[in-house]
């Protein structure tokens, strides 16, 4: 192991701990519910994007269908809760496991596809999921599910009067996703994935089982995204197929990672920290007219950032440092 790399990893861990500590203190200063809401969404998208990044960034299998796993997490939790009274915590884990199993089941045929064919297949499968849920009467069809209010409790993961518990859960999820990425980056899996991304044939010839390593990445990624979906459902207390499984979620998960720096440890967090507040602010300050100005600004910024910084915002920080420590 090269020394630079080990030093960088130690430094990353320290920075992450400091940032997480600072974030945990944020609610002491931020009392405004609107701002708290933005912070929660930012943390959630950072976590989702970090999870997406494991499959699409590190392993190079661009998925634009992660909304499927997000929706599965949300629906498993809420169906179990409303129909069978199973606590959301178990539903959350159950949803994660189901999503991971589905991801592997789908991976079996999907990972033979390459390039655009793979990307379109991921979009299509999420769309099929969306349509099926929209027509599934027992699961509320297009009307969705309203989560019954049972009063504030950690047990039921439901809070009406305060947003703080949601904030801390989102923060924990974000830290978990980051830590999993950090840990995997240095594991044999991390090395396999980068090899698979850069050159699958060469990786195969050196004894990396390309197929299995893609499956591993898909399972981890889907599991974490499903947990995020379960959280989102509890947070909104209402879900319908379009609002948890729509194509826009797949893009919203990918966007922070791409703008921040795809396949990097800090890209998703950085991207989410800039993108999500920007989205919310443009929506509430200039979107009120209902005339689409917020869309114009938002879209133009995406175009500008992706053109100006193809490696993502993290490239602004790493320019001064010696390049390619991880490669």
């Amino acid at each position, binding site marked *: 192991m090269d020394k630079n790399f080990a030093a960088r990893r130690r430094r990353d861990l320290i920075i992450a701990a400091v940032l997480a500590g600072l974030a945990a203190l944020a609610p002491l200063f931020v009392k405004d519910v609107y701002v708290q809401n933005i912070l929660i969404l930012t943390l959630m998208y950072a976590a989702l994007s970090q999870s997406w990044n494991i499959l699409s960034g590190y392993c190079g299998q*661009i998925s634009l269908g992660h909304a499927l796993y997000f929706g599965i997490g949300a629906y498993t939790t809420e169906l179990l809760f409303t129909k069978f009274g199973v606590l959301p915590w178990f539903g959350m884990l159950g949803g994660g496991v189901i999503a991971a199993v589905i991801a592997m089941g789908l991976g079996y*045929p999907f990972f*033979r*596809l*390459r*390039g*655009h*064919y793979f990307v*379109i*297949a991921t*979009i*299509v*499968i999420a*769309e*099929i999921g969306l*349509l*099926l849920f*929209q*027509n599934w009467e027992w699961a509320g069809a297009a009307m969705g599910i309203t989560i019954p209010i049972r009063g504030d409790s950690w047990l039921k993961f439901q809070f009406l009067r305060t947003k703080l518990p949601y904030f801390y859960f989102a923060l924990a999820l974000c830290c978990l996703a980051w830590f999993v990425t950090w840990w995997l980056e240095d594991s044999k899996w991390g090395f396999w994935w980068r090899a698979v991304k850069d050159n699958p044939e060469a990786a195969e010839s050196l004894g990396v089982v390309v197929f299995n390593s893609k499956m591993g990445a898909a399972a981890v990624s889907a599991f974490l995204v499903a947990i995020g979906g379960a959280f989102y459902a509890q947070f909104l207390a209402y879900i319908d197929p379009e609002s948890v499984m729509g*194509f826009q979620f797949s*893009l919203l998960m*990918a*966007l922070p990672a*791409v*703008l921040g720096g*795809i*396949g990097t440890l800090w890209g998703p967090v950085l991207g989410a920290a800039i993108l999500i507040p920007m989205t919310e602010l443009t929506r509430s300050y200039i979107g009120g007219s*209902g*005339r*689409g*100005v*917020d*869309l*114009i*600004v*938002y*879209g*133009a*910024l*995406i*175009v*500008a950032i*992706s*053109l100006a910084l*193809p*490696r993502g915002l993290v490239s602004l920080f790493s320019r001064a440092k010696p390049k390619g420590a991880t490669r």
Partner: protein
Amino acid sequence: MGLLYGLIAVGLALIFGLMDVTNFAHGEFLMIAMYLSFFLFAFFAIDPLLSAPLVAAALFVFGAVIYLLIVRFAMRAKANAGMVQIFTTFGLAIVMRGLAQYFFTPDYRSIPHSWLGGKTISVSGIFLPEPQLVGALVSIAAFAALYFFIHRTDFGRALEATREDPGAVALVGIDKNRVFAFGWGLGAALVGLAGAIMAVFFYIYPDVGASFALIAYVTVALGGFGSVFGAFAGGIIVGLVEAVTALVLPPSLKSVGIYAVYLLVVFIRPRGLFGSM
């Protein structure tokens, strides 16, 4: 309907398939074309059928300008070019939708009286709606023209060569940007044609493109990237599958059949039916 999907898809096939550039704003090109044909009708009372060439010409210019102003730079990206293209064109799509909302408002619009709208024609006892029929004829003609264009003219060869190896074509004196700008213009013009015909029998609103865009991607991929004939065949298959699914399953599930067929095809043939890449 299949042939109309085909017509939307050919434009995309040209941009996505032949030039290997991801264009997530294709549906928005369609939306712009539909609005153009609506306004030409509303202000100048030009029937959509007559204005179709005008709309196609306008879209040609629009497509070429978009390429020169934006996409050209997205293609130059050295790192993860695929993602840069996806998100640049996606951002562009959002801007176009926002602009449409700003200038045209989110209201649903339609062209009430046109030469073709609402009329049917009887072919040996089967009633066919005229707009769809004309759409089908136009799309067959467009396919034939494009097929000829790509395979029989110098420009078509230049386009293919430029995708294969931009460096080498530069050596023989072909300007990559000019070729691709022309290709983008042509792709946009084709979708403009589709938009002009569809404006007759579809509601027009800022998000209208999104619903057709995904089907267009599936159509192109089903037929296989790099093949004009593939996109044509893909369009017909998609139209048929949709019609059959609508008979068997509730109408809200009709797209499921299309998606399932796509998955089935690529699992068996990972390069699409007639794909070369």
